């Protein structure tokens, strides 16, 4: 059976280093299989987060050969195995150990966004009516599996560390899903502009490229939100109108 070498970021804090592990490769294997094999064979304490191994839970996010990927959906036959495959933790979040990072910041940001608030029910039995065409767009956003790869690749977080003032692509998608929900009545625009820092996004579309669910994050979620922020806060005619009417 052919072998491949995996150059894995191991350890914690200042002592973390790349370490090489060789393991057998068989047909159809994905990177997460290789990690599990290495755990069982030679490194039982090797830390990695995973749950479903089917691309549905978004737990096993990492950087494979420098690219943000789900390890469970990255087939080895798409990689050059003649050289070591590097596997590293995500870079936008504090490192815990080996391939695991502390992603709790994402959960705190989400909590700061105002929750869903539906309009009054349409029908006497307390239910609503919505057409499929009206929910299609939001269903796209709701495919998100919260793998946070979009947060990992976003340079505002990754390179500029704007975590305290920038919610990141995942939470723009989350906000867009709420704002475009046919039943929702809440207004999250000022939050997007101020606490969410959506103005920092300069639409490089890296988030869209890495999304394993193929959500068109930039075009369908972020840009419409940006346009609404601009309309509301920066449109010169509206401002003039506000000056004269005092509204």
């Amino acid at each position, binding site marked *: 059976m052919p072998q491949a070498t995996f150059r894995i970021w191991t350890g914690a804090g200042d002592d973390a280093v790349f370490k090489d592990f060789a393991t057998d490769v068989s047909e159809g294997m994905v990177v997460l299989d290789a990690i599990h094999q290495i755990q069982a064979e030679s490194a039982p304490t090797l830390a990695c987060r995973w749950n479903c191994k089917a691309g*549905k839970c978004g737990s096993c996010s990492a950087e494979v050969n420098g690219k943000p990927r789900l390890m469970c959906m990255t087939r080895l036959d798409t990689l050059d195995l003649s050289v070591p495959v590097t596997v590293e933790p995500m870079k936008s979040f504090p490192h815990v150990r080996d391939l695991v990072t502390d992603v709790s910041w994402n959960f705190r940001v989400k909590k700061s966004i105002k929750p869903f608030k539906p309009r009054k029910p349409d029908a006497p039995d307390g239910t609503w009516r919505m057409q499929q065409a009206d929910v299609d767009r939001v*269903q796209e956003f709701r495919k998100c599996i919260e793998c946070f790869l979009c947060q990992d690749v976003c340079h505002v977080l990754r390179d500029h560390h704007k975590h305290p003032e920038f919610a990141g692509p995942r939470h723009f998608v989350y906000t867009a899903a709420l704002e475009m*929900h046919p039943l929702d009545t809440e207004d999250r625009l000022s939050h997007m502009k101020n606490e969410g820092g959506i103005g920092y996004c300069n639409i490089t579309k890296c988030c869209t490229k890495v999304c394993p669910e193929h959500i068109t994050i930039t075009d369908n979620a972020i840009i419409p939100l940006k346009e609404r922020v601009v309309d509301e806060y920066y449109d010169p005619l509206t401002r003039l109108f506000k000056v004269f009417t005092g509204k």
Partner: protein
Amino acid sequence: MSDYQTHEHDVLVIGAGGAGLRAAIEAASVKGLSVGLVCKSLLGKAHTVMAEGGMAAAMAHVDDRDNWMVHFADTMRGGQYLNNPVMAELHAKEAPDRVRELEAWGALFDRTRDGRILQRNFGGHRYPRLAHVGDRTGLEMIRTLQDHGIHQGIEVYMEHTVTTLLKDGDRVVGAFGYDRERGRFRVFKAKAVVLATGGIGRAFKITSNSWEYTGDGHALAYDAGADLIDMEFVQFHPTGMVWPPSVRGILVTEGVRGEGGRLVNKDGKRFMFDDVPDLYKNQVAKDAEEGWRYVTGDKNANRPPELLTRDHVARCINREVKAGRGSPHGGVYLDIAWIKEKLPNAQEHIKKKLPSMYHQFKELAGVDITTTPMEVGPTTHYVMGGVRVDGVTQMSTVPGLFAAGECAGGLHGANRLGGNSLSDLLVFGKRAGEHAAKWAQAQKPSNINAAQVELAAKQALAPFERSGENPYQVQLTLQDMMQDKVGIVRTENDMAAALDGLAALKKRAAAVSIDGNREYNPGWHTCLDLPNLLCVSEAVARCALDRRESRGGHFREDYPDKSKDFAGHNTVIRKAPDGSMKLLREPIVPLTDEQKKVIDANK
């Protein structure tokens, strides 16, 4: 003295999938009640996320003949009448409200033309009944509960694992566990504890279940003295991926068959028409044409045989493979691409209705399901058995301990219908939360027994102090053995051998060791999961050995037929005072006259 932090709540929920989240939300709706929610993984990653097809609720949006009575009768028939009818009735009656409640919390289901929640066909359900979102309904459900739940004042403990329940006399008064990141010990003091830990699939080699499914709730309850029920009934889902090897077991949703997918063997024969069980004779299509009319919404047509119950379909697939009529990698073919003969825009239709399946096969197997049949075979999917609970309150046989969702038993009897799991989570998650809250409010303060905590801490740290083998090897051996000997086809000899094997594995598990430290150490966690896996494996094997008949998910090659002698009791497992596993046969919960009438009217 071990070092640990103590957290105090009125209600502690262990497990944060659909049932756990719903229970926590319900308990937190009681003013002034403090609720803690322990997740083994990050919030929103629990196994519920993988559910695909939908949640069953007789809302009658697509076929107005549907109502709770038909759903109740379908559930009982599917469970071969070993179900707890109290639960089956509550489930059928309350599921529609639970689905509508999700919509009020932001869930966006697929729609009918008149703008209501769309429902789809599924195996064993007489009418289109499953509210769904494409083939990612579980994700929609868990995300809705999560996004709603985080604003209800619930204290969430992410990546925490409970290893022991703590008792004060007969009562459960808390739990002991560790956090994954630092390996620090935690004591949770609580007036009521709800188990919502899911299933046991990781005891088998080929499974659709995620790593968390190590039977924790089953084992915690058993060790605390609670009864387990129906553990012989494990559901092997008929369609899991079989190739390539690394994806073996990953689920292929029943929704594929609900949309018209047909099962064929290597000779191109649609074999499901050959074997239709008596219980379903007058509910199955005469030919392929009628089957197609059924899946496209003709109310006068009967279902194609691919939409029979999972236990039956899995056995038919198994039979084809054993008879040498399988696909090259030991499965059969599931073909949805054929519908292009019927639909002009079939490729787009498939991608729209089954987007996850399309991507899953494209990315993991290199197969385009809009043009090529999939190779599929049975995979361990679900355990019908679980903690024996009161049908109304979900309290176990131990005071203060509740269970809901997959880790509870009773609703599904010998076989669960697809779609009845997500609705189970919501209906009984809510009930468990409600009654746990009531119970908690009525309790006087309790004491945490320091000796119990010390013992739990000592047991948890033992693998660091030993120098035995690597826990992964024990786990792999166990999975191979359970798959081989207590899997889809069972015999007396195999299971007796499995029990011997389990005794040997217990000794090995008691000696496993791990090095490194307590911070995010998966080897250590595997050491601590092993006793749970062994406990549930033994329960399954013992119950399966005792039931000398074939019924639902339990198939005995040496007793291939249903037997009257086994129709009247459930198998119960209890921990004997000497620590051994005791098996009892307990009479089933009888049907009321009303329920009998409902079943007869829907035959």
